[in-house]
């Protein structure tokens, strides 16, 4: 089957159509058009699945990619060629990503039709969700940074709208504003980096950037004193930081949980936040060229650990998940930074699946009991068995328990980080990356199981809360007494169960650790590792462009034999293969130990209650954690309210009070003085002396003439006649 | 001057015979012819005026389902003679405080103004006293003497009713002269000349060639003229200067006898003149509906008959209107003139001019039936 507009465009367009129809006619449709949105995503999923099948099941050579362009607009005039091309770029990574995004999105849509039922914002939710999905799919399909940026921003807009969807809440407004503005900080840098690249190499298509790197076009180019590659790479990474909520631009993501839970699941857990990582992966050669990998790794490590610590003390189930998302995104960034390209991407996929599932499960809990504070929950295992099952699978995955997907991907990242920090012989300070990484992994296992135990195990604490005797309590809270036993429902439980199936490691890697160390699933399942690798920039030099409609030069190829040994960046065969291998072995075992340790401590604390809860152990530190290291206060209270607004007020006052009043209106005062001077001159010199003096002279003459000027008109007639007659007589005509 | 009665008659052989009779003295002959013609026309018009009073009474009676005068002569036809005799024999009373000179002068002026207009009235293409170059203009100008007479009559009587009637009459006549004049000007524009000969020569043939059907503006102009003419002749519903119910009888309240008769006669003749002018300007005058290319005296009389028919039909309409419509108030009178008739007349004038430019002088009939 050919790749034409007809079978690629529906991926992106069918949700757009759903968006348009829902936006304009959603209110008139039955169920406010949620079925339409879901259906449209399913169409996308079908088409994505075909592409996935083509790419993954060996229709193409492993390094095959499709790149087709069309001209969006053309500013050429005469010999001056300048146009903007748009297009699609599908390689293995994009194909996997497409399937993941459309699949997860479809399941979340399906779930939402249940979750958002009877919600006042039901219709509005299903306007933005398909738009978001289409933007995400478009982003994945993009062949260049420019269109990526466009979809990037549209996603930001959808995120903004969905966070602020409950517009009666003041906090929703704050959260949406915060989310948009924080990501916007990254976005403008992304734009800047994109512009910088565009102006140097004349294009921002991935293939052109790769080719330019290979041809050395970046060499010698500098921007405000630093090399172009560093500048552009840094700017682009800053964009990714904003979107992927990396330290220090992470503050928006916890607040973003103001939105409906399925929206959070899709946008703020599975896809959009991963877009930053996806971007970093796409621009990986540039990051390497700009020597930014260590920076990415450090940022990732700080984020991964910091967020994990904050998650320790959160009591809101969604907040825990939000911080765990930040933390996991940090792991992905570590993966990018330490050169674990494949693993980072795998973690992106696995995280998307289990985190989406976690959020949906949390949503299921919240929707069932109308409570999301963990200390008020407990013992829900009996009432929500399917939810419990799904959530347990995902928790196992995220905690890094063997046989689950999280272990497979995260373990490989940590292994590479270990090599990166200790063995690769770089700056010894970079050892902080694996240290924080492993510490974070342990904390992850701990807080995730803390969440599980508090929510699903122990006694049901709902009754305690209500026994305080508030008989006029809001109707929603009465569910605590009689939570109905959960029945298997196609819309609420099936998505969870489907997702939980894919938390197993077997789907992603043949070996337990994903590194071929403990082979349990068979070599054929190492497809992921074979297909995804850092782009080899040399391949893209002189790559011919294909227009839409041209036929594809496809080559059917067998999967090459899997390489099980290592993954370490793009830069050719590494002489330290052996060291890397041993680092991976150490890493694997360390992470297993740490994960189980974390689970065990959680078990002791919250099931056995033999250890006092964390908060009582470090009260001061807990306070800091509860305030999220005071970043919000720093940003909002200090930088924005004191600094930015103060500056604004000052400038505004300056503009109207000083500049306008004195520099502009001041001329009126100057003029007034001039008026007075000229008035004086006019009155005294010109008028009194020059003019009135003449008048006085005339006045004297007047005394004589007054006699003649009798005012009697007949007298004038007579004078006239006499003068005329005398004229005629004297002139003698 | 294009043509006079004398110059018209001089083309016939009997003129030479007459000239011989008068001893080759053309001046004397012309004087005689004019004198006779003038007497004839004045006599005719006086009769028409007199019959006008009869007609008015008879028609009003008809409209009110009465009999009207029916004692004197057959169908009361001689009633006007009886009235005339009565007026002449009545005492000529003059108010003590009246301004005698003006009191005498006023009815004279009225008669002078009206009779002077008869000089240019186109009875037929040949039987015109004088076809002046400025015929229509002359007619308008000289008939304004009537306004002066009305005013003077009102003033000289030294009576409140008369005074008010005179004031009203003068202002009314002056005001309505404007739309009437402008409407006539539109016709002048269409015909390209002010003499009645020129105007009538443009309307020869079938009724579609009449100026009233020349273009829509001329059509409107006819009605503006008709309304204005009613007001100028102090006819109902514009009979404010002589409103019986308000001012007793207006400017001729104090007049008696033949002086009153003069005013009455002048009014009725003026109505006839106005109708005749309307017929000549808009309705083709005495033109025969066919063109024989010969000019004989009987044909002229046929034209006179046609002209008279049209004029008298209009005369009937004037009387009909009088007994149909109620009288206006003074302010309504003035606002009709200045706010409606005058702007409409001006627009008509401009419209006619534009029509002439746009359609190259062709009438609607030319456009519809093709130019001939």
């Amino acid at each position, binding site marked *: 089957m050919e790749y034409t507009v007809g079978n690629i465009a529906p991926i992106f367009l069918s949700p757009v159509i759903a968006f348009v129809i829902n936006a304009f006619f959603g209110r008139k449709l039955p169920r406010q058009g949620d079925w339409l949105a879901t259906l449209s995503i399913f169409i996308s999923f079908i088409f994505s699945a075909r592409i996935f099948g083509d790419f993954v099941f060996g229709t193409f050579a492993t390094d095959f990619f499709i790149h087709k362009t069309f001209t969006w607009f053309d500013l050429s005039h005469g010999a001056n060629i300048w146009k903007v091309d748009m297009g699609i770029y599908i390689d293995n990574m994009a194909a996997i990503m497409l399937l993941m995004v459309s699949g997860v999105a479809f399941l979340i849509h399906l779930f939402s039709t249940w979750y958002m039922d009877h919600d006042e914002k039901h219709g509005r939710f299903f306007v933005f969700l398909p738009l978001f999905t289409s933007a995400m799919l478009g982003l994945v399909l993009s062949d260049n940074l420019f269109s990526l940026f466009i979809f990037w921003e549209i996603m930001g807009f959808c995120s903004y709208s969905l966070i602020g969807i409950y517009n009666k809440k003041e906090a929703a407004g704050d959260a949406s504003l915060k989310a948009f503005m924080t990501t916007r900080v990254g976005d403008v840098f992304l734009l800047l980096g994109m512009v910088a690249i565009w102006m140097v190499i004349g294009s921002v298509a991935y293939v052109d950037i790769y080719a330019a790197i290979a041809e050395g076009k970046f060499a010698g180019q500098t921007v405000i004193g630093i090399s172009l590659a560093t500048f552009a790479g840094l700017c682009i990474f800053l964009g990714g930081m904003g979107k992927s909520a990396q330290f220090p631009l992470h503050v928006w993501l916890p607040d973003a949980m103001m939105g409906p839970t399925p929206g959070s699941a899709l946008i703020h857990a599975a896809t959009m936040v991963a877009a930053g990582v996806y971007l970093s992966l796409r621009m990986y050669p540039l990051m390497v060229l700009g020597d930014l990998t260590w920076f990415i790794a450090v940022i990732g490590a700080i984020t991964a650990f910091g967020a994990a610590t904050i998650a320790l003390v959160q009591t809101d189930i969604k907040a825990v998940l939000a911080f765990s998302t930040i933390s996991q995104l940090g792991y992905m960034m570590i993966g990018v930074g330490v050169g674990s390209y494949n693993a980072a991407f795998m973690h992106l996929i696995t995280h998307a699946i289990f985190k989406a599932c976690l959020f949906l499960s949390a949503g299921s809990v919240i929707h069932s009991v109308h409570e999301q504070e963990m200390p008020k929950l407990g013992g829900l295992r009996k009432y929500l068995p399917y939810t419990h099952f799904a959530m347990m699978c995902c928790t196992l995955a995220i905690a890094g328990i063997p046989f689950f997907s999280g272990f497979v991907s995260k373990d490989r990242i940590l292994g590479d980080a270990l090599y990166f920090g200790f063995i690769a012989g770089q700056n010894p300070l970079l050892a902080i990356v694996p240290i924080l990484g492993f510490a974070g992994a342990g904390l992850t296992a701990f807080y995730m199981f803390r969440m599980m135990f508090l929510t699903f195990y122990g006694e049901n604490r709902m009754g305690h809360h209500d026994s305080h005797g508030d008989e006029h309590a809001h109707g929603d809270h009465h569910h605590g007494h009689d939570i109905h036993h959960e029945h298997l429902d196609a819309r609420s439980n099936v998505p969870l169960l489907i997702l939980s199936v894919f938390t197993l490691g077997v789907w992603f890697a043949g070996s337990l650790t994903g590194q071929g160390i403990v082979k349990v699933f068979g070599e054929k399942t190492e497809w992921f590792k074979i297909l995804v690798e850092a782009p080899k920039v040399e391949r893209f030099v002189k790559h011919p462009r294909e227009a839409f409609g041209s036929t594809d030069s496809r080559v059917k190829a067998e999967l090459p034999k899997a390489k099980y040994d290592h993954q370490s960046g793009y830069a050719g065969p590494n002489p330290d293969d052996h060291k890397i291998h041993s680092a991976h072995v150490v890493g694997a075992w360390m992470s297993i130990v740490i994960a189980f340790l974390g689970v065990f401590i959680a078990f002791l604390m919250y099931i056995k209650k033999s250890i006092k809860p964390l908060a009582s152990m470090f009260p001061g530190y807990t306070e800091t954690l509860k305030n999220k290291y005071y970043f919000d206060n720093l940003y909002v209270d200090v930088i924005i309210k004191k600094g930015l607004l103060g500056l604004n007020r000052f400038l505004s006052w300056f503009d109207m009070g000083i500049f306008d009043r004195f520099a502009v209106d001041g001329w009126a005062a100057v003029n007034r003085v001039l008026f007075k001077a000229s008035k004086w001159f006019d009155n005294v010199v010109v008028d009194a002396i020059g003019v009135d003096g003449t008048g006085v002279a005339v006045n004297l003459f007047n005394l004589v003439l007054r006699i003649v000027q009798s005012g009697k008109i*007949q007298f004038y*007639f*007579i004078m006239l*006649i*006499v003068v*005329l*007659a005398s004229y*005629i*007589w004297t002139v003698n*005509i | *001057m*294009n043509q006079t009665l004398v110059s018209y008659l001089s083309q016939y052989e009997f003129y030479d015979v007459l000239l011989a009779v008068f001893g080759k003295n053309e*001046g004397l002959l*012309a*004087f005689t012819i004019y004198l006779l013609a003038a007497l004839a026309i004045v006599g005719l018009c006086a009769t028409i005026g007199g019959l006008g009073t009869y007609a008015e009474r008879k028609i009003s009676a008809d409209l009110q389902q009465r009999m009207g005068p029916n004692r004197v002569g057959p169908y009361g036809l001689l009633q006007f003679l009886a009235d005339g005799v009565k007026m002449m024999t009545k005492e000529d009373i003059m108010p003590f405080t009246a*301004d005698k*000179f*003006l009191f005498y*002068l006023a009815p004279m002026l009225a008669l002078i103004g009206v009779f002077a207009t008869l000089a240019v009235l186109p009875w037929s293409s040949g039987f015109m006293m004088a076809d*002046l*170059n*400025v015929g229509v*203009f*002359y007619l*308008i*100008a*000289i008939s*304004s*003497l009537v*306004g*002066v007479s009305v*005013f*003077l009559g009102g*003033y000289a009587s030294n009576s409140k009713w008369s*005074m008010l009637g005179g*004031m009203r009459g*003068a*202002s009314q006549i*002056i005001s309505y*002269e404007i739309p009437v004049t402008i409407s006539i000007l539109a016709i002048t524009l269409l015909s390209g*000349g*002010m003499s009645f000969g020129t105007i009538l020569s443009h309307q020869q043939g079938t009724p579609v060639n009449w100026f009233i059907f020349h273009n829509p503006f001329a059509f409107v102009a006819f009605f503006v003229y008709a309304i204005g003419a009613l007001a100028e002749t102090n006819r109902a519903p514009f009979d404010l200067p002589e409103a019986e119910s308000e001012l007793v009888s207006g400017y001729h309240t104090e007049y008696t006898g033949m002086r009153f008769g003069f005013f009455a006669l002048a009014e009725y003749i003026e109505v006839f003149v106005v109708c005749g002018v309307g017929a000549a300007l808009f309705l083709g005058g005495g033109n025969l509906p066919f063109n024989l290319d010969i000019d004989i005296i009987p044909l002229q009389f046929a034209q006179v008959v046609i002209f008279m028919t049209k004029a008298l039909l209009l005369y009937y309409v004037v009387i009909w209107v009088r007994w149909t419509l109620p009288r206006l108030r003074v302010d309504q009178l003035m606002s009709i003139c200045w706010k409606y008739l005058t702007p409409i007349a001006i627009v008509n004038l401009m419209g006619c001019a534009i029509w002439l430019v746009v359609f190259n002088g062709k009438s609607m009939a030319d456009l519809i039936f093709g130019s001939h």
Partner: protein
Amino acid sequence: MFVQLLFALSALLTVGCAIAVAVTKNIMHSCIFLLGSLLGIAGLYATLGADFVAVTQIMVYVGGVVILMLFAVMLTGGKDFVSRAQNLLGLAPAMGNKWTYAIGLLVGLVVLLTNVKLIMNISKAYPAKVFGNDFPSTVNQIGHLLIKEHVLAFELSSVLLLGALVGAAIIARPRKQG
């Protein structure tokens, strides 16, 4: 013959009425005599072959100016008004007295003498011409003159008339007290 007759009658009417205007003490009668005089002048125009001017003369003066004057006389008190300040001014009543007439006649004499001198010269310069009874139409030519050679004056006079119309209306309109 007609023309001579007309000339004689018109001249008589003109001069006679003009003198009557000057002589009569009644302003109303003055106006009527002025009307006669103006009609006479129209007749004189006719004898000069100026048919259009003659008719215009009648149209404007008879139809407009004289009636306007009559109105003005009426609105300002008619024939029997007396100057309120007659005694104070002492010199003349509104319609003049023998002193004012004397001065007027004196000045008229001056003008007469002056003009006689001028007319003597003219009568020498332009000997009498005799015309037949042909009076060609002047309307067309006047029309052409008005919109070709004299178009500026023509337009200006229309502006003047408009100004007079508006001005007269504004000046004479009744005003509210205070």
